């Protein structure tokens, strides 16, 4: 079993702009309406990189940057997880490859790597820590969470760094939609820590007992969102954190699933509640 503490949450999702909004929606789910995410997402990228960054990078970064001050975030270990990466860029490159002379754009080419959002993030925050971009297809969310918890708890994390986990997936281009049912964009970022100081919740992660018990949501609108993107499977976890009730959540992870026990027996619970209500960004400091 792996234990870690959630320090901060960022979310960019249809009808949910940030963690503050998410909290009020989980408390009152009828408020939620699935609305397309803004076309223009503010990111902390420098002008040059902002021009070159694709939608999926902007999506990932918009959630990541909600979790705190860039200077502090630059000290975190970096885990990025996506089921399908940047198929929009793949589509553009492949269309160019089907043309006379095969004129592939160099910028598109470097954007095509799975770790492009992670690379842009490290440039934007000047973060020189280890950066790991992973995928496990429809189980990418849990694989990302496990990788983050493992890096956090490993003896090689000698400096006891916190870990930034960013989970994101775009809507694929039309050619892929018959094989790939991702209907909405979704990005979520968590700061995970070994320390309980200023934590939102404690989570204990263990292998599940079967994939048939994957957690769902009772609200129709939120459940629709959960099923619209592989990374949106994180919503039941966020729901429990928003409602602050000790509970277990099961996320998809191969045959067995991944069990998370969430608890709130934290010394600073009351002061956190106040902080959540007054800050647009929830963060440890």
């Amino acid at each position, binding site marked *: 079993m792996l234990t870690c503490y959630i320090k901060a949450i960022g979310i960019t999702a249809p009808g949910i702009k940030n963690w503050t909004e998410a909290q009020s929606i989980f408390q009152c789910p009828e408020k939620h309406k699935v609305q397309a995410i803004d076309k223009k997402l503010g990111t902390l990228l420098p002008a040059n990189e902002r021009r070159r960054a694709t939608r999926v990078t902007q999506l990932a970064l918009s959630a990541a940057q909600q979790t705190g001050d860039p200077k502090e975030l630059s000290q975190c270990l970096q885990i990025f997880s996506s089921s399908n990466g940047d198929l929009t860029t793949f589509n553009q490159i492949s269309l160019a490859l*089907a043309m006379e002379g095969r004129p592939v754009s160099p910028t598109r080419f470097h954007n095509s790597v*799975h770790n492009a959002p992670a690379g842009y993030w490290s440039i934007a925050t000047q973060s020189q820590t280890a950066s790991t971009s992973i995928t496990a297809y429809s189980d990418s969310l849990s694989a990302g969470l496990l990788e983050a918890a493992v890096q956090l708890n490993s003896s090689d994390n000698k400096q006891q760094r916190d870990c930034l986990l960013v989970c994101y997936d775009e809507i694929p281009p039309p050619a892929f939609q018959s094989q790939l049912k991702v209907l909405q964009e979704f990005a979520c970022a968590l700061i995970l820590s070994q320390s309980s100081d200023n934590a939102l919740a404690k989570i204990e992660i263990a292998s599940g007992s079967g994939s048939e018990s994957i957690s769902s949501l009772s609200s129709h609108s939120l459940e629709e969102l959960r099923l619209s993107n592989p990374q949106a499977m994180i919503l039941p976890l966020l729901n429990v954190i928003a409602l602050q009730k000790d509970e277990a959540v099961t996320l998809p992870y191969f045959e067995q699933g991944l069990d998370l026990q969430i608890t709130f027996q934290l010394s600073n619970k009351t002061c956190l509640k106040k902080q959540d209500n007054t800050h647009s960004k929830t963060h440890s400091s």
Partner: protein
Amino acid sequence: MKNGITGLRQNNFLDVGLDTWIGRVDEIEEQVLPGSLINYQCRNNQLAYLALQQDDFHFAVEQAKQHYGADRLGLFLGTSTAGILSTELAYQSDFFKTTGILPESCHFREQHNSFSITEFIRKLYQLKGPAQVISTACSSSAKVFASAARYIELGLCDAAIVGGVDSLCLTTLYGFNSLELVASEICRPADQNRSGLSIGEGAAFILLEKAERVDEQQSPVYLRGYGESSDAYHMSSPHPEGRGAYQAMQQALESAAMDAAHIDYVNLHGTATPVNDQMEDKALAQVFSSPVACSSTKGWTGHTLGAAGSVEAIYSALCIQHNFMPQSLNTLTPDPAFTQTILMQSSLSNHSTSSIHSVASNSFGFGGNNCCLIFGDQPC
């Protein structure tokens, strides 16, 4: 390798009209995946299947499964492009050009998606343990060693298959060409006139187990340490002073609890682009107080991208087991500005006791993603 024979040839891949050399693997096209996994049939998985048939690997996996259990054997693989060639070729078809629909022979999940390689092998061996793909461009399959070692350390699995697979495709050939990083002549790592890389393909698999279970009779090689870092500089160019490369090597030495002086040989990232080789030399100069023996093996294989980390991990292991240091193949005149000892001839020691005890292997990728692995003939 001992005879200095390159695996590179002048480009003859499909209708790719680029004047360059490639590391193309023979016999890929003849590989037929088992019937139940036929949807996974694509160049990348065929290449993986070809590699898995070597060195009694099937047998080693079956033994590990029996010993640990299928749910205790992890699978950690690296790739950058997986089987995207299948989709690229579909885009060239008249059917796609007229309908905008991918043909039914295109199986996105089983061929194109980066996880396809892991899912294929997971099904092939009926594994039930933790599994993931790390895709950080050209450091991908070096980083899987670090990931697997941590999973084993924390008890999430008892052993792991690690490795990397990347196969030739249009995106990487034309993409690196668009960045003017592809050489028209054969790649010449560390050469004063080096002009870029030769792209290769490769698959490499390693069974990683806890040190206490080794059989000393089999000359085991130990993963002594690893280091991972980010340049935070540029998407497709490394930091010119090798900032991140230095950090990765330094961390790897710390993790191995070793002094740089104890590294006998460095397997360089050594892509043969002007910028990479220069910055890597500068990074090495910061780590090693006296010049270290080093070479890139990309003169043999070309740059196998996401597979390079694992391919070169195997070379590093072979160096230790065979007491061998490979020359910098195709290098005519080492760059006079370089500070380290570029090996111009392979050395095979005759000593009965090994003199190559420890090897460091570097892998650096787009997005400024760096990894250094240290292997040794002794555990930590």
